[in-house]
């Protein structure tokens, strides 16, 4: 048992890490429902659009990740390659950490910080810098 566990740990540790990581951008517009947004996720890798991914979109409030979170929804492929569309039903306006779970050509999770208001969503700026994606 102990040997098997050790083997599993070493096998997991020796697996190679993926070379190129996916990048994401988010564009959201408010819907007719309060706190609900139509969002378009643009995925790329190495500067090229990343189509064919299985994307689910969720969100947490950074200061209350357990208390205020959004049930993840599957994104549908959008109009252009690498684009995915999803509707986000938030609980309130303010800063949200949008969580993108990617499967398919890439297995990863990306966190994007956006400020949601009546006009849409903007990347969060803290200390005069944009958080990296």
């Amino acid at each position: 048992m102990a040997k098997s566990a050790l083997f599993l740990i070493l096998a997991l540790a020796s697996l190679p890490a993926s070379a190129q990581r996916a990048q994401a951008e988010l564009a959201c517009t408010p819907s007719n429902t309060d706190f609900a947004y139509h969002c378009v996720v643009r995925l790329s890798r190495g500067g090229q659009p990343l189509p064919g991914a299985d994307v689910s979109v969720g969100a947490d409030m950074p200061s209350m990740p357990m208390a205020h979170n959004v049930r993840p929804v599957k994104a549908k492929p959008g109009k252009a390659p690498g684009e995915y569309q999803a509707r986000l039903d938030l609980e309130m306006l303010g800063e949200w950490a949008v969580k993108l779970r990617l499967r398919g050509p890439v297995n990863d999770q990306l966190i994007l910080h956006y400020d949601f208001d009546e006009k849409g969503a903007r990347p969060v700026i803290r200390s005069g810098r944009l958080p990296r994606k």
Partner: protein
Amino acid sequence: MDDYVTGVLTNIGLFSFLALSAYLLLIAGEMSFGQQAFFGVGAYSGGILTAIYGLPLPVAALVAMLLGSLCAFLVGLPTLRLRGLYFAMATLAAAEMARILFELFRFQRQIGGELVGPDGTQGFRGIRWVFERGVEPAGYLALVWGLLLIALVVFLLMERSRLGATLRAIGEDPDLARSCGISVERFKLGVAAAAGALAALGGVLFAHHNTYIEPRNFDIMLGVHSLAYALIGGLGTAFGPLLGVMVDLGVLEGSRVFQGYRMIAFGGLVAILLIFRPRGLLDEKVVHWLRARFS
């Protein structure tokens, strides 16, 4: 099982480590509002070790637990001289100091053409060990619950041992325990260190589940919740905090119908519960009754 259910179950497992950490101090008679600091120490140190130094997660978890334990010991040295509310306030102050230190902490390195590491208030991205190894959410859930099961077994064995009886004696009446020759201060420092290690383990697993952490994740809200888990679930057995997390997250998830008002509904429910069950759902009386009935 879909991603949502897996995520909720994983969160229940992760926060159970923090709840058990608060519970351990509660049965020794101390109410800490600062266990989130050691959760944060575990998250940051574990993340740095896997994302920057490329260590395997199990090694990083062990080192993070040691560090969490050491930090809890160092915080315990001055604070455990205080009693009751003063100790609670001191732990809260220590946790806030830790959170501010996380906000000032910058330690980034170039990994694969990308800057990785804690970047103050910008947080710490790219803790991808789990994703890079292709561990699926169900596999990670099994890992979290497997480790939690081990922790629970250790707790149950401890509670049935002389050590458990000593801890409860210290919690009930430290002066009486001292008069029986028990070194109360030494025991409490040991408990604080063990609770710190447990919280740090939860933190490492949390960081690798989320892939991203930031100082705000470890603020007072988390400390209040960790105490609430233990107090709602009950102080009669180590299953109490686990039940507390399930009730807490279960009620939160189940009250989505209230939308933005659900924290108000949730707070009301917790208040009502604590009025009728001040030592939680699984308090000593219930546990004694269950043991008598089923043994």
